[in-house]
């Protein structure tokens, strides 16, 4: 007999994820020239996200459902804002 509640388990998993947790994980991702964004580019992108209305809970982008810190870490990563890649220089 099933004794689990999928929604409860997802909520429990979700509650462990905080902005600090995400930033810590991204800070520890490997860096590679030409593949990952350098520190100044990463910070420029995150500053743009921080001012965006789709940036939710200090860690989540509602236009793609991902954590922008991950996308910003990848040099080829793009901003999914409709009609306008806000990260484009």
């Amino acid at each position, binding site marked *: *007999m*099933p004794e*689990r*509640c*999928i*929604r*409860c388990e*997802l*909520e429990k*998993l*979700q*509650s462990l*994820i905080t902005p600090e947790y995400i930033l810590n994980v991204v800070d520890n991702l490997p860096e590679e020239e030409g593949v990952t964004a350098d520190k100044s580019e990463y910070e420029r992108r995150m500053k743009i996200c921080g001012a965006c209305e789709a940036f*939710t*809970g*200090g*860690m*989540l982008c*509602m*236009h*793609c*459902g*991902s*954590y922008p810190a*991950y*996308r910003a870490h990848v040099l080829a990563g793009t901003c*999914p*804002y*409709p*009609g306008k890649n806000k990260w484009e220089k």
Partner: protein
Amino acid sequence: MKETVIVDVNQKKSTISPDIYGHFSEHLGRCIYGGFWVGKDSSVPNIHGYRSDVLQAFKDIDIPNLRWPGGCFADEYHWKDGIGPKENRKRMINTNWGGVVEDNSFGTHEFMGLCDELGCKPYICGNVGSGTVQEMDEWIEYMTFSGESPMSRLREENGHKDAWKLPYFGVGNENWGCGGNMRAEFYADQYRRYQTFVRQYGPDKIMKIAGGANVDDYNWTDVLMKNALGFMDGLSLHNYTFEYSWEDKRSATEYNDAGWYRVIKNAYRMDELVRRHSEIMDKYDPAKRVSLVVDEWGCWHKTEPGTNPGFLYQQNTVRDAVVAGIILNIFNNHSDRVRIANLAQAVNVLQSPVLTEGDKMVLTPTWYILHMYKAHQGATLLGSTCATAAAGVENISVPALSVSASVKPGKGSDTYTITVCNADAAKSRTVDIGLTGLVKNIVKAEAQIVTSGDMHDCNTFEKSEVVTEKALAVKIAERDTVSIELPAHSVASVTIHA
């Protein structure tokens, strides 16, 4: 390698209900918000707030019905939160879900409007787990009562004078789990009580669907059929396809041959589940009045790296396409009992036909399967057999081919649709399809195929047309037989006019 599929044109079976090809939209992740709904003021092209591209994608596959608002969400949804002026609707910031805002901007009117735009039937799931009988009673009255009453007046005040048609209503969801953690006997009694107030106010029937079993919980089906048969028109069943299990999910895109076959084997399990639940239903309902409603099915993989795990956003490869082909063949072949099914979920959640990101949209390999299979909707199932060789690795073995066949009568000729999946990860097959009992000659045959050179291929926002539907050569080998070359890991739809 050569295989033979025999379709008996004289063995006409059940009608394949179009509703087997239904979809599911829950307030979860970006299925509703950002998926179907962006709001009227969005810069994303929309019609009355619904994304234009997503609407078109579902119209193109002839979506027959859409289930809403959940899922688990249904048993915590209070419908009055989602009606009236948007600025007055309840707004909740769920800190447990990454600070996601549920502002109830998508409610009953927006859902019914979505179904209107899609041209599909609404399938609404009510709240048993945390809702009252009065709440369910009033929701039905609000939606379907055309006379004078407090609820119909409220509907009119909110901008919709006419009552809506509500063909399908689910009385709770997964009541063995997130819908209240009930035991079968308790839920059967709760079902009897709640459904009493799902009143039919006009001539249009509301089909009442009881919350059903999880996977192989046959006792649940037995208890519900024994205790509530006379009060239901449908009984639900949920089953997801994992590589291993819910607790041990694996990548949607990275797998080896064993990973391919583990998922395919689990997809084939749907046949056993449908058969065994049907056998129990037959015991109480031999005339098959009550439908088996598989209103949550599909692949459940690990979420994409870097995405919110609670959003259940996953990619979709050739493997998912073959799974969809196999399971839809199973539903077709059991259409005497399975009359509604809903792939989980429509947009951006689990095995979605459509993925969105900002203003971009991609059609997944699963979408193309639904596009090919739509010819089965409303057709008459034909008996088909295929003594296929096994495919697999080490200790995992699956039937290489999966088949279903149907016919639609035409003016001068009949149209036969045969859908064939090749679950073999590596080997192609020559497949002869014989229409036994055919009096006329085959006059024309054509075929479409969904596959890709690499079984891991998928469509991304950067490369959106890697896996698509393409024409496949068909040879008319004899007056009643056609032949196709079916590549490894592929799904084909053969259309024969005779």
